[in-house]
């Protein structure tokens, strides 16, 4: 897959992974694994970018005697998902037209 495209899709996948419930790094990786397989070394810069862009917020919480970072989506993050959906609706329509049966 094209690198730029993958980058963009990963950002949306991460947002989608936290859109209903707050989540943490390892869980996000497991949740999006069926769609795109990534490791923490790829996830970290994405989370930072999304945080800097105001799409999510981070908080530390204790778990099992250690700290774990939980990520929650913001209104901006939700809007990113909606924008993605409407954009891809258009792309899907184009796809359908391009791949229609030959007559």
């Amino acid at each position, binding site marked *: 897959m094209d690198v730029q495209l993958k980058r963009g899709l990963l950002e949306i996948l991460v947002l989608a992974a936290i859109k209903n419930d707050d989540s*943490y*790094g*390892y869980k996000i990786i497991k949740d999006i694994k069926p769609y795109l397989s990534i*490791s*923490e*070394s*790829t996830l*970290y*810069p994405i*989370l*930072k*970018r999304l945080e800097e862009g105001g799409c999510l917020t981070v908080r530390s919480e204790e778990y*099992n005697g*250690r*700290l*774990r*970072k939980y990520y929650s989506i913001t209104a901006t993050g939700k809007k990113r998902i909606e924008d993605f959906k409407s954009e891809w609706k258009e792309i899907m329509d184009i796809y359908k037209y391009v791949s229609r049966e030959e007559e």
Partner: protein
Amino acid sequence: MMNRGEYLDEIREKLKGLSEKDIDEALEFYKEALADRIDDGLTEEQAINAVGSADEVAEQILMDTPLPKLVSATVKPKRTLKAWEVVLIILGAPLWIPVVAALFGVAIAIVAVIFSLIVAVIAIIASLIIGGLAALVAGIAGFFAGEGVAALAKFGLALVMVGLGVLLFIPCKSLVLWLIELCGRFFKWIKKQFVKRSNINKSESK
């Protein structure tokens, strides 16, 4: 095989130069990542492999760091300089300052050339269209002033210029976009040089 502490130390070493806050934040994240994977049943070694090598981790972070921050991070010496090194650097100033200045100049020149090309392309289109419109007005005015054939020639020339301007607009637009992209790629390339160099320096000093 390295353990968790060594792994985190190596990441810290490779990120040296970034702010303490950035480094600590990254290390906290990777500490948590290892702990979560170990809780999940992996051994320390397997967890490190799954998370990604220290090189990979550092490169991903550095490639996502803005260029100015990256330059100041990688140019900063990794250790305190010895006295004779300071002396050498000062004595060598007549040598290395011009070299650095020249490299900097070349980078600026490349960007300047790209931008002047963009400006030139836009200017050509603009002059064709504006000049054409002016000639059009002149032609019409001349016609009413009784210039006859000369006015008609002016009128025709005006239409040719405007037509050329409009015709060239689309290829020139994509040319300009391509030049801008080229500029972006050039910056990315410079950035890559810094990331690579900083990794080489660190592995040499090991």
